[in-house]
């Protein structure tokens, strides 16, 4: 219980602190800005949560996202493909990388950490080679629609932020209310037990990595929409920030325990600190300091509650 409530309390405490330091922090306008700043990391974190729930980790997430962004912008700009097709191809590329991760984990039984460390480098290299290390500009409007804003109660909200929130609702529903979702938890908790109870664990794992790939593709679309360009150096900050968001949110690195909505809280904590410290006029190094402390606190809390639970069983 501490593991799920803790991050939320930390987020609320951070918001109260920054509100007391800057009168501009707790305005609808500013909170909407924070939301649009975390939308890319937030959507990557959905895929990352799925993988971590199965006791894996996906180190390639940000680099695969960067590849998706380059594929969709290059096809749209250099080859004049219609926006919908270019987007589909970009998401297809990230899903393919997810499938490669999943196949290597399930068929060759390689550890996810090593597999995704490999694909992290491969995705980065492919992105650089395919784009010639050049940023792709003059992206057609069809790819940047989600970066546009609409007015809500006097402040502007970016469509992409709504897409992120909707994806979280869908993911939370699927994980808690469907058989497939509960299978993800079962595979993470006790793969052998899950297999013996008739769950096709290999198919669940493959599905999880492919769905994670789909999330990175959607995140790529949001990133392109937010910045208006295809950036071959995108994803480098998001790569670790997404894992940080999931861990700070309290999802257990040992699998089987955690909630996808907590990852949104984790992403918001990182975003709130970045925004709040700038409003206070404090260097960005302190954001790293705070993030580091929160990561260790979150993992320590998880370990502590696991030990308590184990003692209760024996």
């Amino acid at each position, binding site marked *: 219980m501490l593991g799920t409530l803790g991050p939320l309390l930390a987020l609320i405490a951070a918001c109260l602190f920054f509100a007391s330091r*800057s009168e*501009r922090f707790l*305005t609808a*306008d*500013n909170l909407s*800005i924070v939301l*649009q*700043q975390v939308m890319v990391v937030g959507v990557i974190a959905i895929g990352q949560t799925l993988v971590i729930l199965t006791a894996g980790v996906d180190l390639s997430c940000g680099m695969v996202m960067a590849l998706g962004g380059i594929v969709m912008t290059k096809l749209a700009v250099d080859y004049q493909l219609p926006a919908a097709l270019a987007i589909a191809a970009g998401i297809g590329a990230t899903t393919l990388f997810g499938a490669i991760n999943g196949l290597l984990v399930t068929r060759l039984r390689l550890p996810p950490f090593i597999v995704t460390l490999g694909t992290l480098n491969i995705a980065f290299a492919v992105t*650089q080679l395919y784009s010639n*290390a*050049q*940023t792709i*500009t003059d992206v057609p409007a069809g790819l940047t629609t989600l970066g546009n*804003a609409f007015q809500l109660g006097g402040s*502007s909200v970016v469509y992409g932020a709504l897409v992120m929130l909707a994806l979280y609702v869908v993911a939370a529903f699927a994980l808690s209310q469907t058989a497939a979702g509960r299978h993800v938890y079962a595979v993470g908790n006790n793969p052998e037990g899950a297999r013996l109870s008739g769950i096709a664990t290999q198919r669940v794992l493959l599905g999880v990595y492919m769905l994670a790939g789909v999330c990175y593709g959607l995140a790529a679309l949001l*990133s392109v929409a*937010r*910045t*208006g*360009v295809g*950036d*071959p*150096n*995108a994803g*480098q*900050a998001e790569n670790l920030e997404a894992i940080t968001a999931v861990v700070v949110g309290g999802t257990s690195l040992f699998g089987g325990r955690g909630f996808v909505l907590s990852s949104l809280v984790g992403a918001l904590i990182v975003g709130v600190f*970045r*925004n709040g410290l*700038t*409003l206070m*006029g404090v*260097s*960005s*190094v302190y954001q790293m300091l705070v993030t580091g402390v929160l990561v260790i606190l979150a993992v320590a809390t998880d370990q502590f509650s696991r030990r308590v639970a184990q003692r209760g069983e024996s």
Partner: protein
Amino acid sequence: MLLRVALVFALFMLPSLASAQPVIGLITKTSTNPFFVKMREGAEAAAKSNGARLISGSGKNDGDNVGQVTALENMIAAGAKVILITPNDSKAIVPSISKARAKGILVIALDSPTDPVDASDALFATDNYRAGTLIGRYARAALGTKPARIATIDLFPGHPVGAQRHNGFLKGFGLPAPEAAVNTLGTAAEVVCMADSYGDQTRGQTAMENCLQKNPDINVVYTINEPSAAGAYKALKAKGKEKSVVLVSVDGGCQGVRDVGSGAIAATAQQYPVKMAELGVAAGMAFIKTGKKPSGYTDTGVNLIAAKSVSGVETKDVSTGLQLCFGRK
């Protein structure tokens, strides 16, 4: 047995093959930034026309010292007589450079200095403080008599190039500013927000969004480079403020110069990576042929590119900037 003979023969052959052509090493900060891609292309062309072979390496990302140390060691092993390097970490690279120089290798710093400066034999670089001063002067003139509310979108803490451009900007703007040798960012009452972009477009956008939240009346924006300027412009445009702000930057990449043409950036200080590379290779060839080492600092020049000229500041127009720029034309 035959295999062993062949192997020994091959081992003897390798150095003699390699020594047929003098080897010059180039180590850039990263292998992906268009600025360094252009520098490498320039060095390759210069080496080829001088009958030398260029081998290149780089850090994995901006700030990666260990990657540069590895590249340096590999180049010494490959028999390089001259190594040109753009240090990622001005202090941390010094012991490795000292070792190379002790072996009689000529080491020239390009683009940014080592700390201390004389840790390398010579430095061919943009005067970043002067680049900052030029855009500061332009911004002051372009703003006119209005009171300034400045945001600075900086690099990251502790980098000398970030400090020199920032402090030079303040000086050019007519504000109290630290001198060129100071490695910390100067502040002034007119600077209402400072945020780090890591030279990256996405993070530059995030930084500018947060600064506009802190003070919506910002009317001058200094940016460390053009990708971060593009990000800042996106944030300004989202708030409808792009017309009321003077946005200045440094680099002079082709995309940046186009952004000057479109009005997104008011002025940028253009620097010349190919010139750095050509001077470096020429000095290296002179050393290989005559043993004469270059020394001291050579300014590779900087020009202010702007679409609108202002009084009292010398500028070059966009078409001149496009002829001289690096990156995708």
